[in-house]
Protein backbone atom coordinates (compact mmCIF):
# COMPACT_ATOMS: atom_id res chain seq x y z
CA UNK A 1 0.00 0.00 0.00
CA UNK A 2 1.18 3.46 -0.76
CA UNK A 3 -0.18 5.20 2.30
CA UNK A 4 1.34 8.56 3.14
CA UNK A 5 -0.82 9.72 6.04
CA UNK A 6 -3.53 8.51 8.40
CA UNK A 7 -6.54 10.40 9.65
CA UNK A 8 -8.74 9.37 12.55
CA UNK A 9 -12.20 10.78 13.33
CA UNK A 10 -13.20 9.78 16.87
CA UNK A 11 -16.89 10.53 16.69
CA UNK A 12 -19.34 9.94 19.50
CA UNK A 13 -21.24 7.26 17.59
CA UNK A 14 -18.65 5.80 15.20
CA UNK A 15 -14.88 5.91 15.02
CA UNK A 16 -13.44 6.19 11.53
CA UNK A 17 -9.88 5.90 10.27
CA UNK A 18 -8.50 6.24 6.76
CA UNK A 19 -5.10 6.05 5.16
CA UNK A 20 -4.41 8.21 2.11
CA UNK A 21 -1.69 8.10 -0.50
CA UNK A 22 0.51 11.01 -1.45
CA UNK A 23 -2.17 12.23 -3.88
CA UNK A 24 -4.72 12.27 -1.12
CA UNK A 25 -6.74 9.27 -2.27
CA UNK A 26 -8.15 6.88 0.32
CA UNK A 27 -6.28 3.58 0.21
CA UNK A 28 -7.56 1.98 3.42
CA UNK A 29 -10.52 2.58 5.67
CA UNK A 30 -11.98 1.41 8.99
CA UNK A 31 -15.31 2.18 10.71
CA UNK A 32 -16.35 0.89 14.11
CA UNK A 33 -18.99 1.75 16.67
CA UNK A 34 -17.35 4.08 19.17
CA UNK A 35 -16.02 2.58 22.31
CA UNK A 36 -16.08 4.62 25.52
CA UNK A 37 -12.37 3.88 25.72
CA UNK A 38 -11.47 6.23 22.93
CA UNK A 39 -7.74 6.17 23.45
CA UNK A 40 -7.51 2.40 23.24
CA UNK A 41 -9.80 2.11 20.25
CA UNK A 42 -8.02 4.89 18.37
CA UNK A 43 -4.61 3.46 19.10
CA UNK A 44 -5.69 0.04 17.86
CA UNK A 45 -7.26 1.34 14.66
CA UNK A 46 -4.25 3.51 13.89
CA UNK A 47 -1.90 0.66 14.62
CA UNK A 48 -3.80 -1.58 12.18
CA UNK A 49 -3.41 0.98 9.43
CA UNK A 50 0.19 1.73 10.36
CA UNK A 51 1.06 -1.96 10.01
CA UNK A 52 0.25 -1.68 6.32
CA UNK A 53 1.41 1.90 5.92
CA UNK A 54 4.71 1.62 7.76
CA UNK A 55 4.72 4.60 10.08
CA UNK A 56 3.18 7.69 8.50
CA UNK A 57 2.00 10.96 10.08
CA UNK A 58 -1.33 10.84 11.93
CA UNK A 59 -3.90 13.53 12.58
CA UNK A 60 -6.99 13.16 14.73
CA UNK A 61 -10.34 14.90 14.79
CA UNK A 62 -13.77 14.41 16.28
CA UNK A 63 -15.25 14.47 19.72
CA UNK A 64 -12.52 12.30 21.22
CA UNK A 65 -9.59 13.81 19.35
CA UNK A 66 -7.68 14.92 22.42
CA UNK A 67 -7.55 11.39 23.74
CA UNK A 68 -5.84 10.12 20.58
CA UNK A 69 -2.08 9.84 20.28
CA UNK A 70 -1.63 11.77 17.06
CA UNK A 71 0.86 14.25 15.66
CA UNK A 72 -1.87 16.80 15.11
CA UNK A 73 -5.43 17.45 16.21
CA UNK A 74 -7.95 19.60 14.44
CA UNK A 75 -11.62 20.17 14.95
CA UNK A 76 -14.04 18.20 12.82
CA UNK A 77 -15.19 21.43 11.24
CA UNK A 78 -11.87 22.10 9.58
CA UNK A 79 -11.44 18.44 8.67
CA UNK A 80 -14.86 18.07 7.11
CA UNK A 81 -14.29 21.19 5.05
CA UNK A 82 -10.96 19.91 3.88
CA UNK A 83 -12.24 16.44 3.12
CA UNK A 84 -15.31 17.66 1.25
CA UNK A 85 -13.25 20.09 -0.78
CA UNK A 86 -10.86 17.30 -1.74
CA UNK A 87 -13.78 15.18 -2.94
CA UNK A 88 -15.56 17.87 -4.93
CA UNK A 89 -12.81 20.32 -5.82
CA UNK A 90 -15.17 23.27 -5.32
CA UNK A 91 -16.35 25.61 -2.59
CA UNK A 92 -19.86 25.07 -1.28
CA UNK A 93 -22.00 24.32 1.73
CA UNK A 94 -21.62 21.01 3.54
CA UNK A 95 -24.25 19.62 5.87
CA UNK A 96 -22.77 16.89 8.02
CA UNK A 97 -25.30 14.91 10.00
CA UNK A 98 -23.90 12.50 12.48
CA UNK A 99 -25.40 10.45 15.24
CA UNK A 100 -25.07 13.14 17.83
CA UNK A 101 -24.40 16.39 16.09
CA UNK A 102 -25.16 18.30 12.94
CA UNK A 103 -22.72 20.72 11.32
CA UNK A 104 -23.27 23.20 8.56
CA UNK A 105 -19.97 24.33 7.06
CA UNK A 106 -19.51 26.97 4.43
CA UNK A 107 -16.43 26.00 2.46
CA UNK A 108 -14.51 28.64 0.59
CA UNK A 109 -11.76 28.66 -1.94
CA UNK A 110 -8.98 26.16 -1.23
CA UNK A 111 -11.20 24.31 1.22
CA UNK A 112 -11.05 26.95 3.96
CA UNK A 113 -13.88 27.29 6.44
CA UNK A 114 -15.77 30.53 5.82
CA UNK A 115 -18.50 30.05 8.41
CA UNK A 116 -20.00 27.24 10.43
CA UNK A 117 -22.99 26.45 12.62
CA UNK A 118 -23.52 23.48 14.87
CA UNK A 119 -26.33 21.76 16.61
CA UNK A 120 -24.69 19.67 19.25
CA UNK A 121 -26.75 20.49 22.31
CA UNK A 122 -30.05 19.00 21.33
CA UNK A 123 -30.72 15.48 20.08
CA UNK A 124 -33.72 16.57 18.10
CA UNK A 125 -31.53 18.17 15.45
CA UNK A 126 -29.36 15.11 14.91
CA UNK A 127 -29.46 11.58 13.62
CA UNK A 128 -30.36 10.44 17.10
CA UNK A 129 -33.84 11.86 16.64
CA UNK A 130 -34.53 9.49 13.77
CA UNK A 131 -32.80 6.59 15.45
CA UNK A 132 -34.91 6.84 18.58
CA UNK A 133 -38.24 7.25 16.89
CA UNK A 134 -37.76 4.88 13.97
CA UNK A 135 -36.60 2.38 16.53
CA UNK A 136 -39.80 2.91 18.47
CA UNK A 137 -41.81 2.47 15.28
CA UNK A 138 -39.85 -0.70 14.60
CA UNK A 139 -39.10 0.46 11.08
CA UNK A 140 -35.93 -1.16 9.75
CA UNK A 141 -33.44 1.22 8.17
CA UNK A 142 -33.68 -0.56 4.83
CA UNK A 143 -37.35 0.33 4.49
CA UNK A 144 -37.17 3.97 5.45
CA UNK A 145 -36.61 5.54 2.05
CA UNK A 146 -39.31 3.47 0.44
CA UNK A 147 -41.84 4.26 3.15
CA UNK A 148 -41.21 7.96 2.85
CA UNK A 149 -41.65 7.85 -0.89
CA UNK A 150 -44.89 5.90 -0.49
CA UNK A 151 -46.52 8.37 1.83
CA UNK A 152 -49.46 10.32 0.46
CA UNK A 153 -48.66 13.19 2.75
CA UNK A 154 -46.37 14.02 5.64
CA UNK A 155 -48.04 13.64 9.01
CA UNK A 156 -47.01 16.76 10.85
CA UNK A 157 -44.84 16.21 13.91
CA UNK A 158 -44.82 19.40 15.91
CA UNK A 159 -42.70 18.46 18.91
CA UNK A 160 -39.25 19.94 18.97
CA UNK A 161 -38.04 17.56 21.62
CA UNK A 162 -37.12 13.96 20.77
CA UNK A 163 -38.79 12.66 23.89
CA UNK A 164 -42.02 14.54 23.22
CA UNK A 165 -41.91 13.60 19.56
CA UNK A 166 -41.72 9.97 20.53
CA UNK A 167 -44.92 10.19 22.55
CA UNK A 168 -46.53 12.26 19.84
CA UNK A 169 -45.78 9.56 17.30
CA UNK A 170 -47.28 6.85 19.51
CA UNK A 171 -50.45 8.92 19.79
CA UNK A 172 -50.56 9.43 16.05
CA UNK A 173 -50.26 5.71 15.45
CA UNK A 174 -53.01 5.08 17.96
CA UNK A 175 -55.16 7.57 16.09
CA UNK A 176 -54.69 5.54 12.93
CA UNK A 177 -52.19 7.67 11.06
CA UNK A 178 -50.23 5.62 8.51
CA UNK A 179 -46.64 4.70 9.34
CA UNK A 180 -45.47 5.93 5.94
CA UNK A 181 -46.89 9.36 6.62
CA UNK A 182 -45.31 9.49 10.03
CA UNK A 183 -41.95 8.48 8.62
CA UNK A 184 -42.26 11.24 6.08
CA UNK A 185 -43.26 13.72 8.76
CA UNK A 186 -40.33 12.76 10.96
CA UNK A 187 -37.87 13.40 8.20
CA UNK A 188 -39.54 16.68 7.33
CA UNK A 189 -39.39 17.73 10.95
CA UNK A 190 -35.67 17.01 11.28
CA UNK A 191 -34.97 18.59 7.89
CA UNK A 192 -36.66 21.82 8.89
CA UNK A 193 -34.55 22.06 12.03
CA UNK A 194 -31.39 21.54 10.04
CA UNK A 195 -32.51 24.01 7.38
CA UNK A 196 -33.03 26.62 10.09
CA UNK A 197 -29.28 26.49 10.73
CA UNK A 198 -28.38 26.77 7.08
CA UNK A 199 -27.94 30.36 6.06
CA UNK A 200 -26.56 29.99 2.59
CA UNK A 201 -28.33 27.92 0.00
CA UNK A 202 -26.28 28.09 -3.20
CA UNK A 203 -28.20 27.73 -6.44
CA UNK A 204 -26.06 24.73 -7.32
CA UNK A 205 -27.17 22.93 -4.21
CA UNK A 206 -25.48 21.73 -1.02
CA UNK A 207 -23.37 18.74 -0.07
CA UNK A 208 -24.21 16.23 2.59
CA UNK A 209 -22.05 13.90 4.64
CA UNK A 210 -22.19 11.89 7.84
CA UNK A 211 -23.93 8.68 8.73
CA UNK A 212 -27.38 10.19 8.21
CA UNK A 213 -26.49 10.91 4.57
CA UNK A 214 -26.82 7.18 3.95
CA UNK A 215 -30.54 7.65 4.59
CA UNK A 216 -32.00 8.55 1.19
CA UNK A 217 -35.20 9.70 2.87
CA UNK A 218 -33.27 12.29 4.80
CA UNK A 219 -31.47 13.50 1.72
CA UNK A 220 -34.80 13.98 -0.04
CA UNK A 221 -36.39 15.68 2.95
CA UNK A 222 -33.47 18.04 3.27
CA UNK A 223 -33.71 18.95 -0.40
CA UNK A 224 -37.37 19.80 0.12
CA UNK A 225 -36.71 21.88 3.20
CA UNK A 226 -33.84 23.81 1.67
CA UNK A 227 -35.36 24.23 -1.74
CA UNK A 228 -32.18 23.20 -3.52
CA UNK A 229 -30.37 20.06 -4.59
CA UNK A 230 -28.57 17.93 -1.99
CA UNK A 231 -25.62 15.82 -3.19
CA UNK A 232 -24.18 13.18 -0.93
CA UNK A 233 -20.40 13.02 -1.06
CA UNK A 234 -18.82 9.64 -1.80
CA UNK A 235 -18.22 7.64 1.40
CA UNK A 236 -20.05 10.22 3.47
CA UNK A 237 -18.98 8.88 6.86
CA UNK A 238 -15.30 9.20 6.08
CA UNK A 239 -15.14 12.89 5.18
CA UNK A 240 -13.78 13.94 8.56
CA UNK A 241 -11.14 11.26 8.70
CA UNK A 242 -10.14 12.08 5.13
CA UNK A 243 -9.76 15.74 6.01
CA UNK A 244 -7.64 14.81 9.00
CA UNK A 245 -5.42 12.56 6.87
CA UNK A 246 -4.97 15.36 4.31
CA UNK A 247 -3.90 17.71 7.10
CA UNK A 248 -1.37 15.16 8.27
CA UNK A 249 -0.13 14.94 4.72
CA UNK A 250 0.42 18.69 4.44
Amino acid at each position, binding site marked *: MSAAAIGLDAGSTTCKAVAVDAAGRIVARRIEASSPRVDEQAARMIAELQREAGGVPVAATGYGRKRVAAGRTLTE*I*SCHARGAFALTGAPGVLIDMGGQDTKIIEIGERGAVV*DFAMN*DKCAAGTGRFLEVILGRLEVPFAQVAQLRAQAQRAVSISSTCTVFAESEVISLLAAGEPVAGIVRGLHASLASRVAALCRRRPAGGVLMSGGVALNAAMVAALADALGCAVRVVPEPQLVGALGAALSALA
Partner: protein
Amino acid sequence: MRLVHIQQQRQLHGRRALAVLPVHYPKELLTAFNVLAVEMWGPPGPPRGEDAGRLQPYVCAVARNALAFLASGGADAVDGVLFPHTCDSLQGLATLVPDFGGWTRAAFVFQHARDAGRPSARAFALAELRSLARGLEAWTGRTLTDERLLWALRLHEEIDACRAALLDGRKNSSLGDRELYRLLRRGEWLWPEAHLAELRAARAAMAAEPVQRGLPVLVTGYVPEPPALLDALERAGLTIAADDYAAIGRRVVRWRGAGDPWPWLAQRMLSHPPCPTQSADQGARMRWLQELAQRSGARGVIVHVQKFCEPELFDVPAIRRALPLPSLVLEGELEAELPAQAVTRIEAFAEMLRAGARAA
Protein backbone atom coordinates in the same frame (compact mmCIF):
# COMPACT_ATOMS: atom_id res chain seq x y z
CA MET B 1 -11.71 35.66 49.48
CA ARG B 2 -14.71 37.75 48.72
CA LEU B 3 -16.36 36.79 51.99
CA VAL B 4 -13.27 37.69 53.99
CA HIS B 5 -13.08 41.06 52.29
CA ILE B 6 -16.75 41.83 53.00
CA GLN B 7 -16.29 40.95 56.65
CA GLN B 8 -13.09 42.97 56.92
CA GLN B 9 -14.75 46.00 55.40
CA ARG B 10 -17.50 45.80 57.96
CA GLN B 11 -15.24 45.20 60.93
CA LEU B 12 -12.46 47.62 60.10
CA HIS B 13 -14.37 50.39 58.34
CA GLY B 14 -17.97 49.96 59.41
CA ARG B 15 -18.99 49.48 55.81
CA ARG B 16 -22.24 47.82 54.94
CA ALA B 17 -22.38 45.59 51.88
CA LEU B 18 -25.01 45.62 49.17
CA ALA B 19 -25.30 42.75 46.71
CA VAL B 20 -25.97 44.19 43.26
CA LEU B 21 -27.53 42.40 40.32
CA PRO B 22 -26.32 43.17 36.79
CA VAL B 23 -25.77 45.33 34.78
CA HIS B 24 -25.57 49.09 35.26
CA TYR B 25 -25.97 50.88 38.57
CA PRO B 26 -24.61 54.02 40.32
CA LYS B 27 -21.64 52.48 42.07
CA GLU B 28 -20.31 55.94 42.81
CA LEU B 29 -23.33 56.59 44.98
CA LEU B 30 -22.77 53.45 47.01
CA THR B 31 -19.12 54.35 47.48
CA ALA B 32 -20.12 57.83 48.61
CA PHE B 33 -22.33 56.23 51.24
CA ASN B 34 -19.44 54.05 52.39
CA VAL B 35 -21.33 51.00 51.14
CA LEU B 36 -19.44 48.12 49.55
CA ALA B 37 -21.01 46.92 46.28
CA VAL B 38 -20.77 43.17 45.78
CA GLU B 39 -21.87 42.37 42.25
CA MET B 40 -23.71 39.13 41.60
CA TRP B 41 -22.90 37.85 38.12
CA GLY B 42 -23.78 34.29 39.04
CA PRO B 43 -22.92 32.26 40.87
CA PRO B 44 -22.18 29.87 38.00
CA GLY B 45 -23.39 26.29 37.95
CA PRO B 46 -26.89 24.87 38.17
CA PRO B 47 -29.08 26.58 40.76
CA ARG B 48 -29.33 24.55 43.94
CA GLY B 49 -31.69 24.42 46.84
CA GLU B 50 -35.42 24.47 47.35
CA ASP B 51 -35.87 27.75 45.61
CA ALA B 52 -34.23 26.65 42.40
CA GLY B 53 -37.60 25.55 41.03
CA ARG B 54 -39.37 28.84 41.68
CA LEU B 55 -38.28 30.17 38.31
CA GLN B 56 -39.08 28.25 35.16
CA PRO B 57 -36.22 26.74 33.12
CA TYR B 58 -36.73 29.30 30.35
CA VAL B 59 -35.85 32.15 32.66
CA CYS B 60 -32.18 32.98 32.23
CA ALA B 61 -29.56 31.49 34.49
CA VAL B 62 -28.68 34.94 35.83
CA ALA B 63 -32.05 35.29 37.52
CA ARG B 64 -32.37 31.61 38.46
CA ASN B 65 -28.95 31.33 40.00
CA ALA B 66 -29.34 34.63 41.83
CA LEU B 67 -32.66 33.54 43.29
CA ALA B 68 -31.30 30.24 44.46
CA PHE B 69 -28.26 31.92 45.93
CA LEU B 70 -30.15 34.62 47.77
CA ALA B 71 -32.81 32.30 49.07
CA SER B 72 -30.36 29.69 50.29
CA GLY B 73 -28.53 32.20 52.43
CA GLY B 74 -25.57 32.39 50.12
CA ALA B 75 -25.62 36.16 50.28
CA ASP B 76 -26.13 36.45 54.00
CA ALA B 77 -22.79 38.16 54.32
CA VAL B 78 -24.34 41.28 52.79
CA ASP B 79 -26.86 43.61 54.34
CA GLY B 80 -29.08 44.32 51.38
CA VAL B 81 -29.64 43.80 47.67
CA LEU B 82 -29.89 46.33 44.85
CA PHE B 83 -31.86 45.32 41.77
CA PRO B 84 -31.27 47.48 38.72
CA HIS B 85 -34.23 47.34 36.38
CA THR B 86 -32.20 45.80 33.59
CA CYS B 87 -34.60 43.47 31.77
CA ASP B 88 -37.76 41.41 32.26
CA SER B 89 -36.05 38.66 34.24
CA LEU B 90 -34.45 40.99 36.75
CA GLN B 91 -37.62 43.04 36.86
CA GLY B 92 -39.45 39.92 37.97
CA LEU B 93 -36.72 38.82 40.37
CA ALA B 94 -36.88 42.20 42.10
CA THR B 95 -40.49 41.62 43.09
CA LEU B 96 -40.40 37.84 43.49
CA VAL B 97 -37.67 37.82 46.08
CA PRO B 98 -38.74 40.60 48.45
CA ASP B 99 -42.51 40.03 47.99
CA PHE B 100 -42.79 36.27 47.91
CA GLY B 101 -39.79 35.25 49.93
CA GLY B 102 -36.11 34.56 49.54
CA TRP B 103 -34.74 37.78 50.97
CA THR B 104 -35.86 39.51 54.10
CA ARG B 105 -33.30 42.26 54.40
CA ALA B 106 -33.18 45.58 52.61
CA ALA B 107 -34.03 45.54 48.91
CA PHE B 108 -33.54 48.53 46.64
CA VAL B 109 -34.57 48.98 43.02
CA PHE B 110 -32.91 51.35 40.59
CA GLN B 111 -34.75 52.21 37.38
CA HIS B 112 -32.82 53.24 34.32
CA ALA B 113 -33.54 56.08 31.98
CA ARG B 114 -33.77 54.43 28.61
CA ASP B 115 -33.13 56.19 25.32
CA ALA B 116 -30.85 58.61 27.06
CA GLY B 117 -30.78 61.29 24.39
CA ARG B 118 -34.14 62.63 25.46
CA PRO B 119 -34.54 65.46 27.99
CA SER B 120 -37.10 63.36 29.86
CA ALA B 121 -34.54 60.59 30.29
CA ARG B 122 -31.85 62.92 31.60
CA ALA B 123 -34.25 64.50 34.07
CA PHE B 124 -35.39 61.09 35.19
CA ALA B 125 -31.85 59.78 35.60
CA LEU B 126 -31.14 62.63 38.00
CA ALA B 127 -34.40 62.20 39.90
CA GLU B 128 -34.01 58.44 40.24
CA LEU B 129 -30.48 58.87 41.57
CA ARG B 130 -31.68 61.33 44.18
CA SER B 131 -34.45 58.93 45.10
CA LEU B 132 -32.02 56.06 45.56
CA ALA B 133 -29.79 58.34 47.59
CA ARG B 134 -32.67 59.13 49.93
CA GLY B 135 -33.26 55.42 50.37
CA LEU B 136 -29.61 54.83 51.13
CA GLU B 137 -29.58 57.72 53.58
CA ALA B 138 -32.41 56.18 55.52
CA TRP B 139 -30.76 52.78 55.43
CA THR B 140 -27.26 53.80 56.40
CA GLY B 141 -28.20 56.66 58.68
CA ARG B 142 -25.66 58.84 56.87
CA THR B 143 -26.27 62.14 55.17
CA LEU B 144 -24.65 62.51 51.82
CA THR B 145 -22.66 65.69 51.26
CA ASP B 146 -21.67 67.08 47.89
CA GLU B 147 -18.00 66.83 48.88
CA ARG B 148 -18.34 63.15 49.58
CA LEU B 149 -20.10 62.54 46.27
CA LEU B 150 -17.42 64.51 44.42
CA TRP B 151 -14.76 62.40 46.05
CA ALA B 152 -16.53 59.22 44.95
CA LEU B 153 -16.95 60.52 41.40
CA ARG B 154 -13.27 61.34 41.10
CA LEU B 155 -12.32 57.95 42.52
CA HIS B 156 -14.47 56.07 40.05
CA GLU B 157 -13.26 58.22 37.17
CA GLU B 158 -9.73 57.22 38.12
CA ILE B 159 -10.73 53.58 38.24
CA ASP B 160 -12.36 53.81 34.82
CA ALA B 161 -9.31 55.56 33.41
CA CYS B 162 -7.10 52.70 34.63
CA ARG B 163 -9.49 50.06 33.37
CA ALA B 164 -9.65 51.79 30.00
CA ALA B 165 -5.87 52.01 29.85
CA LEU B 166 -5.47 48.32 30.66
CA LEU B 167 -8.15 47.28 28.16
CA ASP B 168 -7.08 49.59 25.37
CA GLY B 169 -3.41 48.95 25.88
CA ARG B 170 -3.57 45.21 26.43
CA LYS B 171 -1.06 44.60 23.68
CA ASN B 172 1.49 46.14 26.02
CA SER B 173 0.37 44.29 29.08
CA SER B 174 2.32 41.34 30.34
CA LEU B 175 -0.93 39.97 31.68
CA GLY B 176 -2.60 37.25 29.67
CA ASP B 177 -6.35 37.42 29.20
CA ARG B 178 -7.07 35.29 32.20
CA GLU B 179 -4.96 37.39 34.56
CA LEU B 180 -6.27 40.65 33.15
CA TYR B 181 -9.87 39.59 33.58
CA ARG B 182 -9.25 38.25 37.03
CA LEU B 183 -7.84 41.63 37.99
CA LEU B 184 -10.66 43.58 36.39
CA ARG B 185 -13.33 41.35 37.89
CA ARG B 186 -11.99 41.86 41.37
CA GLY B 187 -13.50 45.29 40.93
CA GLU B 188 -16.91 43.62 41.20
CA TRP B 189 -16.45 43.28 44.96
CA LEU B 190 -13.34 45.01 46.17
CA TRP B 191 -13.63 48.30 47.99
CA PRO B 192 -12.91 50.79 45.15
CA GLU B 193 -9.80 52.26 46.69
CA ALA B 194 -8.30 48.79 47.03
CA HIS B 195 -9.26 48.01 43.44
CA LEU B 196 -7.66 51.24 42.24
CA ALA B 197 -4.40 50.34 43.95
CA GLU B 198 -4.29 47.01 42.13
CA LEU B 199 -5.17 48.63 38.81
CA ARG B 200 -2.43 51.22 39.20
CA ALA B 201 0.14 48.54 39.93
CA ALA B 202 -0.86 46.60 36.82
CA ARG B 203 -0.80 49.75 34.76
CA ALA B 204 2.65 50.65 35.98
CA ALA B 205 3.84 47.20 34.98
CA MET B 206 2.78 47.65 31.38
CA ALA B 207 5.63 47.30 28.93
CA ALA B 208 6.70 49.94 26.46
CA GLU B 209 6.74 47.42 23.64
CA PRO B 210 3.82 45.29 22.51
CA VAL B 211 3.84 41.71 23.73
CA GLN B 212 3.37 38.92 21.19
CA ARG B 213 -0.05 37.32 21.51
CA GLY B 214 -2.44 35.21 19.54
CA LEU B 215 -4.85 36.23 16.83
CA PRO B 216 -6.82 39.26 18.00
CA VAL B 217 -10.59 38.94 18.43
CA LEU B 218 -13.32 41.25 19.64
CA VAL B 219 -15.56 39.71 22.28
CA THR B 220 -19.01 41.07 22.98
CA GLY B 221 -21.54 39.59 25.36
CA TYR B 222 -22.58 39.32 28.91
CA VAL B 223 -19.89 38.07 31.26
CA PRO B 224 -16.63 36.17 30.76
CA GLU B 225 -17.78 33.06 32.59
CA PRO B 226 -16.61 30.44 33.14
CA PRO B 227 -12.98 31.56 33.49
CA ALA B 228 -12.02 28.40 31.59
CA LEU B 229 -13.32 30.18 28.50
CA LEU B 230 -10.31 32.46 28.62
CA ASP B 231 -7.97 29.47 28.86
CA ALA B 232 -9.69 27.88 25.86
CA LEU B 233 -9.20 31.06 23.86
CA GLU B 234 -5.55 31.17 24.77
CA ARG B 235 -4.95 27.52 23.95
CA ALA B 236 -6.67 28.02 20.63
CA GLY B 237 -4.26 30.84 19.89
CA LEU B 238 -6.71 33.69 20.28
CA THR B 239 -6.38 36.91 22.24
CA ILE B 240 -9.10 39.31 23.24
CA ALA B 241 -8.12 42.57 21.60
CA ALA B 242 -11.35 44.45 22.26
CA ASP B 243 -13.90 43.93 24.99
CA ASP B 244 -17.61 44.70 24.90
CA TYR B 245 -18.69 42.46 27.75
CA ALA B 246 -21.53 43.95 29.78
CA ALA B 247 -19.55 43.06 32.88
CA ILE B 248 -16.34 44.66 31.67
CA GLY B 249 -15.81 46.95 28.68
CA ARG B 250 -19.37 48.11 28.36
CA ARG B 251 -19.23 49.72 31.77
CA VAL B 252 -16.04 51.66 31.32
CA VAL B 253 -16.90 55.34 31.18
CA ARG B 254 -14.35 57.34 29.26
CA TRP B 255 -16.09 60.66 29.70
CA ARG B 256 -14.79 63.03 32.37
CA GLY B 257 -17.09 65.32 34.31
CA ALA B 258 -16.81 68.40 36.49
CA GLY B 259 -18.85 70.81 38.57
CA ASP B 260 -22.11 69.97 40.29
CA PRO B 261 -21.84 66.31 41.40
CA TRP B 262 -25.46 65.35 40.73
CA PRO B 263 -25.63 66.12 36.99
CA TRP B 264 -22.12 64.70 36.80
CA LEU B 265 -23.30 61.44 38.36
CA ALA B 266 -26.36 61.32 36.10
CA GLN B 267 -24.24 61.93 33.02
CA ARG B 268 -21.83 59.18 34.03
CA MET B 269 -24.77 56.79 34.17
CA LEU B 270 -25.60 57.70 30.58
CA SER B 271 -22.06 57.75 29.21
CA HIS B 272 -20.96 54.15 29.09
CA PRO B 273 -20.67 52.39 25.71
CA PRO B 274 -24.03 51.56 24.09
CA CYS B 275 -25.84 48.78 25.88
CA PRO B 276 -28.95 47.06 24.50
CA THR B 277 -30.53 47.12 27.95
CA GLN B 278 -30.80 50.89 27.78
CA SER B 279 -30.47 52.24 24.30
CA ALA B 280 -33.17 52.59 21.68
CA ASP B 281 -30.62 53.08 18.91
CA GLN B 282 -29.29 49.80 17.61
CA GLY B 283 -27.27 51.63 14.96
CA ALA B 284 -25.26 53.44 17.60
CA ARG B 285 -24.23 50.16 19.17
CA MET B 286 -23.24 48.70 15.83
CA ARG B 287 -21.11 51.78 15.05
CA TRP B 288 -19.43 51.46 18.44
CA LEU B 289 -18.61 47.81 17.77
CA GLN B 290 -17.32 48.63 14.29
CA GLU B 291 -15.06 51.28 15.77
CA LEU B 292 -13.83 48.89 18.46
CA ALA B 293 -13.10 46.23 15.88
CA GLN B 294 -11.22 48.61 13.68
CA ARG B 295 -9.19 50.23 16.46
CA SER B 296 -8.17 46.89 17.87
CA GLY B 297 -7.34 45.18 14.59
CA ALA B 298 -9.60 42.29 15.51
CA ARG B 299 -9.71 39.48 12.96
CA GLY B 300 -12.89 37.94 14.23
CA VAL B 301 -15.71 38.56 16.66
CA ILE B 302 -17.02 36.26 19.35
CA VAL B 303 -20.55 36.92 20.54
CA HIS B 304 -20.80 35.31 23.95
CA VAL B 305 -24.42 35.40 25.03
CA GLN B 306 -26.33 33.69 27.81
CA LYS B 307 -29.28 31.56 26.86
CA PHE B 308 -32.61 33.37 27.12
CA CYS B 309 -30.94 36.78 27.45
CA GLU B 310 -33.18 38.96 25.27
CA PRO B 311 -31.20 42.21 25.23
CA GLU B 312 -28.13 40.38 23.92
CA LEU B 313 -29.89 37.94 21.61
CA PHE B 314 -31.98 40.55 19.79
CA ASP B 315 -28.77 42.20 18.58
CA VAL B 316 -26.97 39.08 17.31
CA PRO B 317 -28.11 39.25 13.66
CA ALA B 318 -27.28 42.97 13.53
CA ILE B 319 -23.81 42.36 14.96
CA ARG B 320 -23.12 39.68 12.38
CA ARG B 321 -24.21 42.02 9.60
CA ALA B 322 -22.45 45.11 10.92
CA LEU B 323 -19.01 43.63 11.44
CA PRO B 324 -17.15 42.62 8.28
CA LEU B 325 -15.44 39.82 10.19
CA PRO B 326 -16.00 36.12 10.75
CA SER B 327 -18.15 35.63 13.82
CA LEU B 328 -18.73 32.91 16.36
CA VAL B 329 -21.79 32.84 18.57
CA LEU B 330 -21.28 31.03 21.86
CA GLU B 331 -24.33 30.48 24.00
CA GLY B 332 -23.79 29.72 27.65
CA GLU B 333 -25.96 29.08 30.66
CA LEU B 334 -23.59 30.29 33.35
CA GLU B 335 -22.08 26.82 33.54
CA ALA B 336 -19.39 26.21 36.12
CA GLU B 337 -17.32 24.31 33.58
CA LEU B 338 -16.81 25.11 29.94
CA PRO B 339 -18.64 22.46 27.89
CA ALA B 340 -16.63 20.51 25.33
CA GLN B 341 -18.93 21.78 22.60
CA ALA B 342 -17.84 25.33 23.34
CA VAL B 343 -14.18 24.33 23.20
CA THR B 344 -14.71 22.70 19.80
CA ARG B 345 -16.40 25.79 18.48
CA ILE B 346 -13.62 28.03 19.73
CA GLU B 347 -10.98 25.80 18.24
CA ALA B 348 -12.82 25.56 14.92
CA PHE B 349 -13.19 29.33 14.88
CA ALA B 350 -9.47 29.78 15.57
CA GLU B 351 -8.60 27.31 12.80
CA MET B 352 -10.88 29.25 10.49
CA LEU B 353 -9.27 32.58 11.34
CA ARG B 354 -5.76 31.22 10.99
CA ALA B 355 -6.53 29.72 7.58
CA GLY B 356 -8.03 33.04 6.56
CA ALA B 357 -4.99 34.90 7.85
CA ARG B 358 -2.66 32.64 5.89
CA ALA B 359 -4.69 33.09 2.73
CA ALA B 360 -4.74 36.86 3.13
